[in-house]
């Protein structure tokens, strides 16, 4: 799994209420959610995000509500990968379950700058900042989680018998 994109950077404790405010939760259509993604934190996000972009963030990304609408909105915005110092646990499993790539790497999340171009290979656990050439290493997912992602998410894993 390899991802390349330019970076949009946020800080600590980005909660799911700012990722997708509850006033828009009367729908679950991905494109409608994407139209309001990050609205209460960064009004410019929707207009500047490009297909393949990578979000970097600080500690506890995705804290708060369990709304799967949050990773759905991020994915539907075109974001290919989220790199954070740490993730809130419900967001973490939701992202895996719906097939939004995420990775914990505190050093990369700290050092990579807004606008840098980054390439991440999650199989080998190597993240490269192509703008300055710096390289970071992270632990690959555990095998069980890797298999969910490789099967295309939890639903597909159950449908094809990989999870019984």
């Amino acid at each position: 799994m390899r991802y390349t994109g330019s970076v949009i950077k946020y800080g600590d404790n980005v909660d799911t209420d700012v990722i997708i405010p509850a006033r828009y939760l009367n729908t679950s259509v991905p494109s409608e959610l994407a139209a309001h993604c990050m609205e209460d934190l960064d009004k410019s996000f929707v207009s500047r995000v490009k297909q393949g972009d990578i979000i970097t963030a600080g500690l506890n990304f995705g804290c708060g509500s369990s709304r799967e609408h949050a990773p759905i909105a991020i994915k539907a915005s075109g974001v290919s990968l989220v790199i954070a110092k740490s993730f809130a646990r419900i967001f973490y499993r939701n992202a895996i379950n719906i097939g939004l790539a995420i990775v914990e790497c505190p050093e990369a999340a700290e050092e990579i700058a807004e606008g840098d171009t980054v390439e991440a290979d999650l199989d080998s656990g190597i993240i490269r900042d192509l703008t300055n050439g710096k390289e970071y290493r992270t632990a690959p997912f555990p095998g069980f989680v890797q298999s969910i992602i490789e099967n295309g998410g939890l639903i597909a894993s159950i449908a094809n018998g990989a999870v019984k």
Partner: protein
Amino acid sequence: MGMTMTQKILAAHAGLGSVSAGELILASLDLVLGNDITSPVAVKEFAKLGKDSVFDKDKVVMVMDHFVPNKDIKAAEQCRVCRGFCGDMDISHFYDVGDMGIEHALLPEKGLVTAGDAVIGADSHTCTYGALGAFSTGVGSTDMACGMAIGKAWFKVPSAMRIELKGSLRPYVSGKDVILHIIGEIGVDGALYRSMEFGGEGLASLSMADRFCIANMAIEAGAKNGIFEVDDLTLGYIREHGAAEPKVYTADPDADYDEVLDIDLSEIEPTVAFPHLPENAKTFGEIGEVKIDQVVIGSCTNGRLEDLQAAAEILRGRHAAKGVRLIVIPATQRIYLEAMEQGLLKTFIESGAVVSTPTCGPCLGGYMGILAEGERAVATTNRNFVGRMGHPGSEVYLASPATAAASAVTGRITSPWEVMEI
């Protein structure tokens, strides 16, 4: 190495003799829960599996509580999806307008959870049922869909933080103050990925409402679950509400806790979490004059009968300050009825409050109390993130029902000790 309470419950549900922190397991579930926001997504995912039935129609619960009675057409359509699914699948526990309540107050009241259960819910505050000695955790809609399909969920076995309670609470101090104090100490990611296990001799002084409130907000410290040791009070509650026979798990004496937090309940003061994180906890020595526009008393955290009684005790014979909108939301129909029979609703209305049907409404900025730019609310809810109750430029201050009621009376954030002259 011994196991924690949570690890023992997970081991039993995974059919394993023992588990240890970090291990990935597939656990069988006693209950799978969703609401009117998260269930429609789960229904859509469930349909992809091509199944014509859920794993057990008695073990799936859907509660319409966030945007009901429906706030708009889209919300109505979402509820229709849930209603249709529950009809098609012959779900035993579908709670709609008229018999619904806020899910985390409703499920224990209906006796749907017992000690030793493993429960997932597509709502982050599903951790509430840890007060009953169950393993209970919030998940997303896809986990809910898979839980409905196969009755199982994958988990990484958590390590745990032990919270050792001693002493007893002072007057007008409640579980809300305790959990705000703890989150203030450890931060909003202080228990990330971990269990918070509550026990010790101080447990005896905490009511079930206090315990539900504390377990409810474990997620605000990032925890996977909050869980309480089971005592006679828990067992009494479980029996009184007709839940299944409890299975009581206790942590091994050599259980591996990676942190122990000692809390002396007698030292806890009325506590308020300032915007925009629940960890911004302050006591009244540090709080100056903060004028407010609205007070909300309710939610899955503090909408129980004991919470309404605490608020009514302070509001009785007093009136909300001019310019303060006071909104009281009993968490379930049964609580609403009991509050009426006890005269609490009369007290609220005479003090200038509006009393609403059960709903999550204002807590998440849905409806029934949205804030304008620059407005401030004291709320007994659980989150004070940017924009949580309305405009991104509004502010939410989290507090107990007693503090919220005292603040309504004065029009500024006020300790119940001040109003009750303690």
